[in-house]
């Protein structure tokens, strides 16, 4: 039973992962990403880490990818745009990427000895064990990650703010460009 579930969701994760890369429509690629993340969450649960699985869905599938979709739909990207890079440039990028990936793979396998996984201890699996590990032994890295995220948020806000747009004028849904030219029309929304 567990093996069957593993096979189904592992195949789903890989398959939808390929779709994310290959599909030309950004909406389909993003929705496939959701499927990949969901399958990964199922795999986490099978590995005995239900907390990681739930957080994976809650944070990535439930929030971050929704924002991706939000931006894609807001900008109304129909087909792959900005993918007009030259063939040779793409080739170079692909080769470099493959070298980096294989190098990391090699390093990872050289340093760890492959062995059958031992049974997970209750301390690693349970929420209490995870929480006490995070807030005692790994408190400093945990706090630093929090700080890093805060810096990222502030950075994004600063980068998104145009210079000179300091005044916080109330954003109105209706703009009258020239009152004499006719009735007040809603600002055009991209179809």
């Amino acid at each position, binding site marked *: 039973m567990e093996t069957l579930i593993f096979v189904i969701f592992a195949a789903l994760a890989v398959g939808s992962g390929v779709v994310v890369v290959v599909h030309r429509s950004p909406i389909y690629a993003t929705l496939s990403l959701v499927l990949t993340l969901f399958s990964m*969450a199922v795999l986490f649960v099978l590995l005995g880490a239900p907390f990681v*699985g739930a957080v994976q869905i*809650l944070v990535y599938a439930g929030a971050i990818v929704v924002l991706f979709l939000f931006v894609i739909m807001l900008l109304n990207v129909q087909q792959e745009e900005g993918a007009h890079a030259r063939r040779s440039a793409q080739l170079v990028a692909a080769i470099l990427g493959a070298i980096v990936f294989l190098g990391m793979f090699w390093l990872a396998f050289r340093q760890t000895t492959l062995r059958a996984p031992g049974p997970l201890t209750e301390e690693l699996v349970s*929420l209490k064990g995870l929480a006490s590990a995070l807030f005692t032994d790994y408190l400093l890295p945990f706090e630093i990650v929090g700080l890093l995220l805060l810096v990222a948020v502030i950075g994004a806000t600063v980068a998104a703010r145009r210079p000179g747009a300091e005044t916080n004028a109330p954003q109105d849904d209706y703009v009258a460009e020239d009152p004499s030219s006719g009735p007040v029309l809603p600002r055009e929304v991209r179809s």
Partner: protein
Amino acid sequence: MNSDLIVTLIKYAVMFAVFINVAPIMVWVERRGAGLIQDRPGPNRVGPIGLFQPLADALKFMFKEDVTPALVDKPLYLIAPVLALMPAFTTLVLIPFGPTITVGGRTTPLVVTNADTGVLLFLAISSLGVYSLVMAGYASNNKFSLIGSIRASAQLISYELALTVSVLAVLIPVNSFRLTDVVAYQQRYGWNCLPQILGCLVFLIAAFAETNRLPFDLPEAESELIAGFHTEYGAMRFALFFQGEYSNMAALSALGATLFFGGWSLPFIHYPHNLLGAVLGLLTLVAKIAIAMAVFVWVRWTFPRFRYDQLMRLGWKFLLPLAIVNLILVAALTVAGVLKPLNP
């Protein structure tokens, strides 16, 4: 077949029966309620006081022509309404609906899955509900649908934060993510809605936004967007969205009842640990869900719709800070020993 599996299936069937009947009953309650509030009769032609109206509506949905517009994105258009039902009918496995009972020498807690990550899993699965709306809006190839689903995605993410933080505050004194422990805590120390009145309020308001109900139904907003994300849907496919909306309301009502109003338990009353206790527990939970649904209807026909910028301001500048204040307050009270932990 494995006997544990059979017990689980029976428990799921009970909760499924409750949730699947929510939409037909709510059709009647919503329209009669609207009539009551607006001083008019409401549906009163089909059956006594219009009681068979849901039946007539269901027949109408089934026999209507199922039109698929020409230029829709076919796969996404077809999947979206089905996905609308997914969160509610998955999360109901986490709601406890009675005490631990012993029937025929077998002891079982009355919850389909008593997962260690309980509430977290509930929030995770219900956060996937937004994809149904987004897919429907995008696939319909209609600007009203698209605006509706863009609104939906921004709104759901904004209010999910406040909702999650208010839920988190409940879990601090309980010391567990399991909803059964939340109920056990309230049996011992009284309902959470009293010490956590702020969190309860935040949860209530965020629940309205999460289920796209008035005064926060901007993804539909019939006066500006026709019907929002489901403009291009008709017949049974529309009925699925309809059913999905009411099922999600019921699921969030059940979560709210469990977190803040004692779940299946009543104060000072201990249900017996047998079938009678199971029936009483289920009836108590259903009654609490029904009261919450009545509040949904009452609010819908009482308040006008928010403007979009007001909605965002309320979510980010009022609800989220309030939820965080509540979180800190509850944490402080727990540390100070005013709120006692379940298992010290």
